[in-house]
């Protein structure tokens, strides 16, 4: 058996194909989920991919949050379904209040596409289980509104509870508070990350393959039951 990983396509999703490729490379089965449908087709995990859902014309993720499929995803995530939001998916998870904090415009006010080092700080989540604590991996960051912000009390809480999953390890690319690149919910099944692990699965087309463990981690976990 293998894990069935659902990948939601919103209007304007761009990295859905890339996420599907990463799941397949990791040995899972990628299941397309359509924003306007109800039901999660019995998947074992869900990825909200990068892109510009609904053009991101209002506020990133603000409209996608109300898509019909979110009606099923939100309670499923609360019940423990593994969910990974990448870039725009991270923004959607914050808008849907499945993750704390917000993503704001980069402090330099420009879109940025660059490879950078990310330090995995929390390996307790279903998505980062395969990494070593403190492991630094090379990923690609590509976003215009990637500055992770939360109020000081929230940041304090996140730190105490160990909910910061990853931080930027070689400088501040976008003005994120405490260099936060990825966070999780309290239970650890929902993770949002701004850089793109699905673009780091093959040295031919990405900075390497150190992002693949995000996908193998969750698939191994599902297969192991």
């Amino acid at each position, binding site marked *: 058996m293998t894990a069935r990983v659902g990948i939601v*396509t919103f*209007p*304007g999703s*761009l*990295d*859905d*194909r*890339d996420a*599907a*490729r990463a799941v*397949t*490379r990791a040995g899972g089965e*990628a299941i*397309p989920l359509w924003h*306007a449908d109800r039901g999660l087709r019995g998947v074992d995990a869900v990825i909200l991919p*990068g*892109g*510009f859902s*609904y*053009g*991101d*014309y209002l506020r990133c993720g603000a409209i996608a949050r109300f898509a019909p499929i979110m009606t099923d995803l939100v309670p499923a995530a609360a019940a423990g379904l593994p969910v990974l939001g990448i870039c725009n998916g991270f923004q959607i998870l914050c808008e849907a209040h499945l993750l704390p904090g917000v993503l704001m415009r980069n402090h*330099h*006010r*420009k*879109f*940025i*596409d*660059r*490879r950078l080092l990310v330090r995995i700080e929390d390996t307790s989540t279903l998505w980062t289980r395969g990494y070593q604590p403190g492991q630094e991996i090379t990923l*690609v960051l*590509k976003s*215009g509104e990637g500055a992770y912000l939360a109020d000081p009390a929230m940041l304090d809480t996140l730190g105490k509870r160990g909910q910061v999953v990853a931080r930027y390890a070689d*400088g501040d690319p976008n003005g994120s508070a405490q260099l936060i690149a990825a966070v999780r919910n309290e239970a650890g099944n929902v993770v949002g990350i701004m850089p*793109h692990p*699905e*673009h780091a699965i*093959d*040295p*031919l*087309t*990405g*900075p390497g393959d150190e992002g693949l463990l995000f996908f193998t981690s969750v698939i191994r976990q599902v297969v192991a039951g």
Partner: protein
Amino acid sequence: MSAAALDTVAAAAAADRPQPYAELGLTGEEYQRVRELLGRRPTDCELAIYSVMWSEHCSYKSSRVYLRQFAEKAPATTALLAGMGQNAGVVDIGQGYAVTFKIESHNHPSYVEPFQGAATGVGGIVRDILAMGARPVAVMDALRFGPAGAPDTARVLPGVVAGISFYGNCLGLPNIGGELGFDPCYAGNPLVNALCVGVMRHADLQAAAAAGEGNQVILFGSRTGPDGIGGASVLASASFEGGEAAKRPSVQVGDPFMEKLLVECCLELGAAGLLAGLGDLGAAGLSCATAEMAAAAGTGMRIRLDAVPLRDPALGPAEILMSESQERMMAIAAPADVAAFLAICARWDVPATVIGEVTGTGRLQISWHGELVVDIAPQTAADGPVYRRPAARPASQDALAADGPDRLPRPSSGPELRATLLDLLASPGLADKTWVTQQYDRHVRGDTVLAMPEDAGAIRIDEQTGLGVALATDGNGRYGWLDPYLGAQLALAEAYRNVAAAGGSGRDVAVRGGGAGPRGRLPVPWHPGHRRQCQLLQPDAGRGHPPDPGGGCARRAGRRAAPGADRVRSARRAGSAAWHDRRRVWRLGLGAGGARSPRWPPAIGRSGGGTGGRVAARRRGPGRAAGRGP
């Protein structure tokens, strides 16, 4: 809008009257020719159609005599599946795949409104690729600005880059390369060229033709608004109480989200076999799409203009015909397929409306609330006049050529050499381009093998077989100024070298000519250098010559619109002078690749499934360090 009398075909036949043809850019002779073709004065709508279709921008009436050589002199090849006269050239790359690519300038709009001008330049070129039936897979941008330190460059450059970044990133197309150059001659006249490359299976090739009597004409995509109809305001102003018409935007506004939906929608329509014809709406909007698609098939068309969904209900028929609202496509579909067609559009939230049908009359007949306002032979609009303008070697050219580098001082001492080296390193032309390129998403779609700052961009097409394409854009304006003939050859050679250096094969290559130059440098065209270089550079005598699928400026020598009414006006102002004093050439070759991607999304993809093993990966050079951020 006041109740100004609708100018119908019947009214035009009944009564003559003075018409504002000169304000619309037609010469007296051209206006007379329209009257002869119709046997009466044109209606307002007909005048609008002929004025935009016969503009230099749409008809290439002054440059066609030169551009047609690309088709006439091209050696026979089986690799070229579609060439001159199509929206974009299509080249067979083997394994059942074909690529189509095209580059086009959006210079004047990008000077007037850098952000939207550049953004819609990307949008327009992507729709041309889409219209061929291909999935757009990457973009490139070749840019030229005035001096880096000039105040106006500080206005134009960031806006242009942000516009390309906004549109391309949101559309989900990796930007894999391009050029950035500075020269005083581009102050006030930046060059903003956008390239798009698309991939298709041979069977996916679409025709921009309205074939099949009784087939339905469907307009889909954005609603029609008052974008880019500055020219039509001459006709509209009579019906306005005040001067509102003059306040309308002349540069179109882009909506990359709608374009993304259009891309997925069109590809799904094609995969479902629902497209009998497909065309994009660019310059001259509906005028161009209806006239050209009917002319291409030798058919007629009956259009109900009042069925066109509007963003601004005050628009009149002539304005609707000339509107250059972005993100619109026109399809021809069999009556039995219309329901399925509209269902797919609805799934993608793309507005779609049946606005007419294909007829066998050979006439383009357009009605407005039941009244006939256009009744013309579409070919007469699609085929503009052809001029052979006087051409001569400029007298100043000898003096320019004689003014060689010998008289320039040369560094000889250590300190002089040091100063020269520092000058070179500090020159914007050689400086790190990261400030620009890191605003572009180069990774989306996950198939980018090479991108900036490599010599060429490379995109993987088939994961299983490793098939891919490498592309480079090159051009040296100074060479073109000094010697257009050699300059064109050198541009092609440079692009050829860049693709070769990236690992591209020299066997199957295609070139694309195009571009515009700084205003007023050479008064007349005088060298067909690019053409000659295509013949010189035949890579393998046994396999044939590089096919030329048509060019940016050279594209569709004869009849084809491109987005941007402002370019119409720009071209009118500059006349033919600016069109040929510089050549740019784009090369394409075959590169390496990796493993086949899963079919995604399953309902749409057509590239087959499976996940083959990885082939040996060719690692890209390390990314550049962060550049000069603010």
